[in-house]
């Protein structure tokens, strides 16, 4: 029904305009793999594609798809495990595993589990995730280990949703990250203000997000999560923070729109946890072109 292009992308410093075709390819992968799966989470996967495009293909993260366990690699922890279709697409396009495998999302025997898993051995996956709030604490543990035990220059990137911030343990993670001055930790919040039941502010407000993180000793960067130069600059700022050892973790509050830029999904929380039908997928793919 859907075929996947064979192209992979290099991870290197780029001009802002170069990210658009990459993000487009990632979004196409998300739509196709979800339509083939018949279940899964479209909204956040599409809404974060620009963040993934810059993080993995803009020379920000240091990784080697030929050597996924490379000991000096930076690590990416997807705490919001349900948006794994975008992570799988990204890893495939980075060359961690064959792009063809995106067809197997959520299928019996697949390495592309409905939520990320370690025991299936998919290269590039750093931890299982799915119960919200846990991944960010794991990222804190990794950053602690890097900064205080191995004393290396590795970085840990972690992405949570905004509804995820309703989980109390995320604030335990924030407390520990601030307390331990984890300037090697970059926490990305996908702030689309959508969750399964509605607007985040209606289900249980987490606002103001910035002040909360500031209170936990974070450097807070609020950006338009669909503006490549803002995304790029914020990651660069984090790297600078780390190099200058500012003694504070960095959080990037990325203002995004669920389902971006697909017209019928755009900013609609109803698209949190459903896939497009074949027909909808074809429309969405056409809109992307």
């Amino acid at each position, binding site marked *: 029904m859907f075929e996947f292009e064979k192209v992979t992308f290099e991870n290197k410093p780029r001009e802002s305009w170069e990210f658009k075709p990459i993000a487009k390819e990632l979004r196409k992968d998300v739509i196709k793999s979800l339509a083939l799966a018949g279940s899964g989470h479209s909204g956040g996967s599409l809404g974060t594609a620009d963040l993934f495009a810059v993080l993995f293909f803009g020379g920000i993260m240091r990784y080697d798809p030929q050597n996924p366990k490379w000991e000096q690699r930076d690590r990416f922890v997807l705490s919001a495990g349900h948006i794994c279709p975008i992570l799988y697409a990204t890893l495939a396009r980075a060359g961690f595993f064959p792009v063809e495998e995106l067809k197997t999302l959520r299928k019996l025997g697949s390495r592309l589990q409905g939520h990320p898993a370690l025991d299936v051995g998919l290269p590039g996956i750093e931890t299982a995730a799915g119960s919200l709030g846990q991944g960010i*604490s794991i990222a804190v543990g990794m950053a602690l280990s890097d900064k205080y035990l191995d004393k290396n220059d590795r970085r840990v990137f972690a992405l949570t949703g905004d509804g995820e911030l309703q989980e109390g343990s995320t604030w335990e993670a924030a407390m520990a990250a601030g307390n331990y001055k984890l300037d090697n930790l970059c926490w990305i919040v996908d702030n689309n203000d959508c969750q399964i039941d509605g607007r985040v502010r209606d289900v249980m407000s987490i606002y103001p997000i910035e002040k909360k993180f500031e209170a936990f000793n974070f450097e807070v960067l609020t950006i338009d999560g669909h503006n490549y130069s803002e995304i790029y600059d914020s990651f660069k700022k984090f790297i600078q923070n780390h190099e200058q050892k500012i003694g504070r973790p960095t959080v990037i509050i990325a203002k995004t729109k669920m389902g971006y830029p697909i017209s019928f999904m755009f900013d609609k929380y109803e698209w949190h946890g459903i896939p497009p039908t074949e027909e909808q997928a074809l429309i969405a793919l056409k809109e992307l072109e």
Partner: protein
Amino acid sequence: MNEFKLLGKKATRYGFGEALVELGEKYPNVVVLGADVTGSVLTSFFKEKFPDRFFSIGIAEQNATTIAVGMALSGKIPFFATYSVFSAFRNADQLRISVCYNNANVKIGGGHSGITVGPDGATHQSLEELSLLRTLPNMKLVVPCDYLETKKATLAVAEFYGPAFVRFGRAPVPYFTTEETPFKIGKAEIFRQGKDIAIIACGIMVWQSLLAADELWKRRGISAMVINSHTLKPIDVETIVEAARTCGAVVTAEEHQVHGGLGGAVAEVLAKNYPVPIEFVGVPDRFGESGEPEELLEKFGLTWKEIYSSALKAIDRRDNKPQSNHVYRNVEDIAPISQDLI
């Protein structure tokens, strides 16, 4: 006759705390995480010796458990310990997904376990965690019988890759094993040979089982086998089945709810492999309460006396004898034994 002699009383938590220091010396990648009660679960020994490898996470057990996973995924061997009610229940979801589903090399210490935590009362008396932990894939679950065995168990769990939980307690309890007593994760040890009834116990109930075996022999001429089944997961199927074959009747004893713990594990093994009558000694599906450890053990039926009477009952069931003629608890032939043995 028991080959074990009472050597004294010592809280099992000392075994845990001392072992961590030994591990710290042996392995530079052993790290310890604390959640505020380090002086209670004696991770304080490690903290004093290796301050650079000790991380205080505060009263945040969910976070501590998952931070430990992040460290394990970075090649460390993290030990996280607090009271069992917090290190098995407060963080249960973290144990399930981040620790066990990841098969992360995280070791959990469950301190202040069981009814013997005493005056703190029901909120702090963990009597359910063995049941929960036993159902988690990849988890290894150890309930050592005394101070020295707790030390051996703690040292042993560092030697394999993967999640493990070691249970220990606050109150001074009998210690009787020696350096020569065999200990291997996953291997139940026959602490006393017998042929009429098999008593399978873990934790502090192992000593009570040895006392019960003595009394059964002295008062009734009944030869009781006593098995220290310190590892609940993986359970030692072979030893348990062999004991059931030899004796034809079984009593289990644990400082835990009668449901889902060691008794449940033994029942699963025997129902599948060699069904025999089983009697279960444990806390009868209720919460604890405040009191001194000895008072609580007596009140909640966690002494040699309940093991003794349960053994008689299991034997009667095996032999198809009517049981209604027996009063199995507080019968006259159970004279009090010296308090310092309990």
